[in-house]
């Protein structure tokens, strides 16, 4: 019987913003181990920072006594990071599209993080699994990119 694949690293952090720096450092290192150069790894760390911030602010509504699990999958062609929480489910479709000019005039700031995640990663998807929310971030590895392929 084939065993289900396991993540290369699992990190469990409290739902507090003081752990964002740790998340960023770990993500950057994992990206470098997976073959991204430091300049490419930095935006990946930002995308994961944004995903964790979303969980703290929206799924957990600022509660600092919950847990967030990060699962890093170093796959053949991709680096995949699952950000998992057991808080309220947030429908990503409810997050407004970013229109910077309108945002400035209306003093709005929400949605920027989601916009950044979508621009940095090749894929950002959300699903429910085992009563938990899973935000799945995928970035194609540099070596797997075709000539002239998209880079961060």
């Amino acid at each position, binding site marked *: 019987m084939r065993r289900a694949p396991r993540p290369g690293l699992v990190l469990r952090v409290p739902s507090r913003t003081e752990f964002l720096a740790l998340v960023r450092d770990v993500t950057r290192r994992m990206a470098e181990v997976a073959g991204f150069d430091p300049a490419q790894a930095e935006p990946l760390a*930002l995308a994961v920072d944004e995903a964790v911030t979303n969980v703290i602010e929206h799924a957990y509504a600022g509660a600092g006594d919950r847990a967030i699990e990060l699962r890093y999958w170093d796959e053949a062609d991709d680096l995949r990071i699952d950000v998992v929480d057991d808080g309220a489910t947030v429908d990503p479709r409810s997050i407004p599209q970013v229109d910077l000019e309108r945002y400035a005039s209306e003093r709005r700031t929400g949605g920027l993080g989601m916009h950044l995640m979508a621009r940095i990663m090749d894929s950002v998807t959300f699903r429910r699994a085992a009563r938990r929310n899973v935000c799945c971030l995928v970035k194609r590895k540099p070596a797997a990119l075709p000539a002239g392929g998209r880079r961060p």
Partner: protein
Amino acid sequence: MSELSVDTRELEEVVLLYPHGFINAHTVRLFEGEIQKALDRRQYNIVVSCGGLKYIASAGLGALMGVIEEVRTNGGDIRIADLNETVRNIFEILGFNHLYRIFPSELEAILSFREGGETGTPRA
């Protein structure tokens, strides 16, 4: 070690902010607070000099976005200087380079306020 410090300096009619470290959801209140202090003093010509800024997340970009209309309505502007490649990349990903004037150096940003007061979004 603190993840963010923000020094400020006034030079004639311009307020200079020097964020040093990381601006994310954890540290953004400090950054917002320093911007707000300038606005409370009715100082609307602001240069954010980013030579010491290693990293900015959407929380920090939102802090700039949240006050830009007030600043420009009062005849001022927020101008950005001395971005490292990482931060410049983040600004460009979000299109902030179309909303804010960005200068290679702090001096150029300061001098731009003497050009005749052009505010608002940068020229294409």
